């Protein structure tokens, strides 16, 4: 980050810049001082969209807190109060709750874009790690936020997820000690709600910190690009401002239209009706479903018959992304020049979506009915094995054995060639 090319226009600007060169920092990071590859496509829009969603969530969240009470006796009522009494409270809450889903959509696309175009490969491994850390923080934040309305799904989601940590029962009573520490009691109760509220408020600001590191790590090697080759000469690059600020702003306006469709026309489609029933520790809903963005991992949890190994499998399914830079041994980054890699990548996506679909089903539900009938549990096990096989078998072998297509010598050359053909 940072740039020495920034020249303040006004005298006051110059005076300030000599004392705190923050305008130069912004200029060099997200302004005209940062030169990005000239061939970035719209898949590169999702980084700034994620940044936008983070700001939206923090803004709406801070306002919602002004009307919310984190106590088991008042939390559910406070949310209803926001929905019915507070001016535009419904808008703020629907923006925040749907915003969480939108944030995850954007981040999933951002991660998958990095996978397809090899953005995790050298020299961007630490950039990739920081992104995964942001994603893990988002999962924790989203989970704790979902508990705050204190509906039935809030309560039972919290119960199921916190109980995962009870699986680490290496000596008698260890699991319970961990759970009592997490809950501040003997079950999910008021102390749990209050600490979740505190952390739900804190973690987004931690995310902001890691985002700054993420952008810092991005600017050392610079952005990857659809060709996956290094941008070399000045002909390969264009200034971030105005070119990509304009392109990102165009993408953003399109994205906001979709976001608004959810907020105004189907605000509850991502939620679960049971969460409009106040939490009741005596009654478990007939079917507990987590938020959609956790569903593939939930299926992996359910697929393993042993509690501890189920939990380990679920956490591994996310942590395995950290070693992806070394599982992939190819010299070529972009899947554009790796047809077999691209093929398996799309299979991986289909399988992950299928895992998510199975996450909404009861283990005994019959999914495929051909005479005998195959239940969700069996399919979940197959899909879970395929999920891990992608990382452990497919990526290491295909990346090392595949004969890649010829890679262009430079970004500028490739752009000019395309222009000639066109």
């Amino acid at each position, binding site marked *: 980050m940072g740039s020495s090319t920034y020249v303040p226009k006004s005298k006051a600007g110059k005076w300030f810049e000599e004392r705190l060169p923050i305008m130069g920092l912004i200029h060099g990071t997200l302004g005209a001082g940062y030169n990005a590859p000239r061939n970035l496509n719209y898949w590169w829009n999702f980084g700034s969209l994620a940044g936008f969603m983070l700001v939206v969530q923090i803004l709406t969240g801070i306002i919602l807190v002004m009307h919310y009470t984190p106590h088991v006796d008042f939390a559910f009522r406070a949310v209803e109060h926001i929905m019915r009494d507070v001016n535009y409270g419904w808008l703020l809450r629907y923006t925040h709750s749907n915003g969480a889903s939108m944030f995850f959509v954007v981040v999933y696309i951002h991660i998958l874009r990095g996978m397809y175009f090899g953005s995790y490969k050298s020299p961007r491994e630490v950039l990739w790690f920081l992104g995964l850390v942001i994603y893990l923080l988002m999962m924790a934040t989203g989970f704790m936020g979902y508990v705050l309305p204190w509906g039935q799904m809030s309560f039972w989601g919290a*119960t*199921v997820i916190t*109980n995962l940590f009870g699986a680490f029962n290496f000596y008698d009573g260890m699991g319970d000690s961990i759970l009592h520490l997490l809950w*501040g009691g*003997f079950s999910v109760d008021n*102390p749990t709600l209050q600490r979740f509220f505190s952390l739900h408020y804190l973690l987004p600001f931690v995310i902001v910190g890691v985002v700054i590191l993420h952008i810092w790590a991005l600017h050392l090697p610079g952005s990857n690009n659809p060709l996956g080759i290094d941008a070399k000469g000045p002909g390969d690059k264009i200034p971030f401002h105005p070119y990509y600020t304009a392109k990102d702003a165009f993408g953003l306006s399109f994205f906001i239209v979709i976001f608004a469709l959810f907020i105004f026309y189907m605000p509850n489609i991502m939620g679960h009706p049971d969460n409009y029933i106040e939490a009741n520790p005596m009654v478990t*809903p007939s079917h507990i479903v987590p938020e959609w963005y956790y569903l593939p991992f939930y299926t992996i949890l359910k697929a393993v018959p042993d509690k501890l190994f189920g939990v380990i499998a679920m956490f591994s399914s996310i942590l395995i992304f950290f070693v992806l830079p070394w599982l992939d041994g190819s010299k070529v980054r972009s899947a554009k020049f790796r047809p077999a890699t691209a093929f398996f990548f799309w299979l991986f996506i289909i399988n992950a979506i299928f895992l998510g679909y199975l996450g909404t089903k009861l283990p005994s539900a019959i999914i495929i009915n051909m005479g005998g009938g195959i239940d969700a549990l069996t399919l979940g096990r197959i899909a879970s094995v395929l999920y891990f096989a992608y990382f452990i078998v497919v990526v290491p072998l295909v990346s090392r054995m595949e004969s890649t297509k010829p890679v262009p010598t430079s970004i500028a050359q490739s752009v000019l060639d395309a222009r000639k053909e066109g």
Partner: protein
Amino acid sequence: MTTNDQIEHEEEVTRRNFLYVATGVVGAVGVVSAAWPLVDQMNPSADVLALASVEVDMSSIPEGQTVKVLWRGKPIFIRHRTAKEIARGVSEDNDPMKDPALDKDRAQKPEWLVMIGICTHLGCVPLDNTEFQSGEYGGWYCPCHGSEYDIAGRIRKGPAPRNLEIPKYEYLNDTTVKIG
């Protein structure tokens, strides 16, 4: 300024080395003792611990019915078992089980089954199959991930690792128990 140290030889333990390590150790102990209250505040507080026991009068529970009471924020199942149910529990004592237990060890008095109504898998409240002895084992069924418990609350099928937990309880008289 001079010190009393002799000229330092490699590998030799000097006064300076000792002071360096000692300072580090004292510092580490200080950091850990300062951090402990920050962690321990998360554990159940005194008022939560004070609610640790509940007394239940069971005289109004007819045979063949289950009552749920709340103890420490958790549902407790109190099942007044029929003779038939007890017989079934005993007859299945030797069946294969993940967490083997004898029916007689599951209750202080066989007709009164007192258990924490929380699935040992991930904490859902199992549904009652006892009334019609429905399901494969005629006990409780957890809707979350499909664990099945028998009429003595023993895990028989599904991902749960242990039998439904028995809380600490004692009989104050023939029909009153103190849980906790």
